[in-house]
């Protein structure tokens, strides 16, 4: 009698726990930071073997020539101190890796140039319940696993959408800059042309005005 009650109690706790995990391990963060030289953000990974996925896009782009700024460097450091993932000189990319251990992971953006850039990033830590989460005498309910997998797939779609949104923002900045350049530079070009030709005329007038008059007499 006593043992059956205890077992039922444990089962209730187990269901609540799994549902708590399903609700709580949905760690997402999507933000923009301005990177002057080095910016690091930290994200906590609860379980070893979790898939950490995400993307980042360099959004603010006030540079003059596109080739001047090759992009920023991105590094992921595990809590043990070794570099898990590294991308160099990119203006935006997706990343995904399996966490080798649980703990605090460091995601660093390094800007090799002096102009500050704004980086929009998204980090998601996904967990699928496995046998290792439970005590030895509990069974893994397959429906919980399926729901977790479904949620992870939907999260990957959301991540993709956030990436597209950030890229679209960057594209919009480029478009605005193009529009401004078209107007500003062409009007400037007309003015310069008119100025250059009038200067030419004035110069030739002066040239012939002084010398020929001398020779004429």
């Amino acid at each position, binding site marked *: 009698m006593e043992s059956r009650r205890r077992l039922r109690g444990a089962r209730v*706790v187990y*269901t*609540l*726990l799994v*549902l*708590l995990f*399903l*609700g*709580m391990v*949905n*760690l*997402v*963060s*999507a*933000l*923009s*930071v*301005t990177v002057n030289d080095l910016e*690091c*953000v*930290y*994200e*906590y990974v609860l379980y070893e073997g979790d898939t950490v996925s995400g993307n980042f896009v360099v959004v603010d782009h006030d540079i003059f020539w596109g080739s001047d700024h090759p992009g920023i460097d991105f590094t992921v450091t595990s809590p043990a101190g070794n570099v898990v993932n590294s991308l160099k000189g990119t203006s935006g990319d997706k990343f995904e890796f399996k966490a080798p251990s649980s703990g*605090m992971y460091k995601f660093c953006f390094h800007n090799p140039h002096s102009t500050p850039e704004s980086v*929009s990033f998204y*980090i998601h830590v996904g967990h699928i319940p496995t046998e290792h989460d*439970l*005590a030895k005498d*509990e069974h893994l309910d397959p*429906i919980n696993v399926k*729901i977790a997998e*479904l*949620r992870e797939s*939907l*999260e990957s*779609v*959301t991540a993709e*959408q956030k990436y597209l*949104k950030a890229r*679209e*923002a960057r*594209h*919009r900045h480029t*478009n605005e800059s*193009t*529009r401004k350049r*078209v*107007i500003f530079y*062409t009007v400037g*070009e*007309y003015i310069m*042309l*008119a100025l250059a*030709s009038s200067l*030419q*005329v004035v110069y*030739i*007038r002066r040239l*012939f005005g002084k010398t*020929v008059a001398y020779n004429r007499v």
Partner: protein
Amino acid sequence: MKLVEAAAVILVAFVVAPAVRGLWVDLPSTGTKCVSEELHNHVVVLGDYHSFFGQNDDVNYTVSPSISVKVTSPYGNNLYHQEKVSYGQFSFTATETGSYTACFTVDGEQHGGKTVTVGIDWKTGISAKDWDSVAKKEKIEGLELELKKLEGIVQAIRDNMNYMMSREMDMREVSETANSRVARFSIMSLGICIVTSVSQSLYLRRYFRKKKLI
């Protein structure tokens, strides 16, 4: 018993140390660190922040340094402003499309050489939805609640998709006007070049004729 203990420990960890959730950002000793996100209209934002010293300086999180927080809308309106706090929560609904910024500044110089870290839990849209109240209102729980959450996520994906399509349409118009402008201005520039050179030549010919050189 072991399971109950493990559950208790994890629950306590999640409740007592909210810094475990969300992102951690280091604050510079002087100056402000800002994080922002571009949002469109009617998006609900829920933010939790908690300041502490990093693990190197304060292993047991005993001291909470005071910081000041400021959340501004894209047009500069102040949405939330608190000074000399170490944790708190803010929430707002986006009324304008643009970049919403949350800025954190360290108060004063009393921290010596230690780095102040802020744990930010920034949730927008479907992640900010209060599922507990939905569960209570509709009296669903467990598996049904999880499926309802998934349904919410799918709806959010669809809404996002529609929004992206309308943005793409706007951008396409801007691109096409820029394209036609480039063509028009280049032809005009060619025209101006020809006009300038012709008027130059005519003027100089008249000038030389007047000076009796030709």
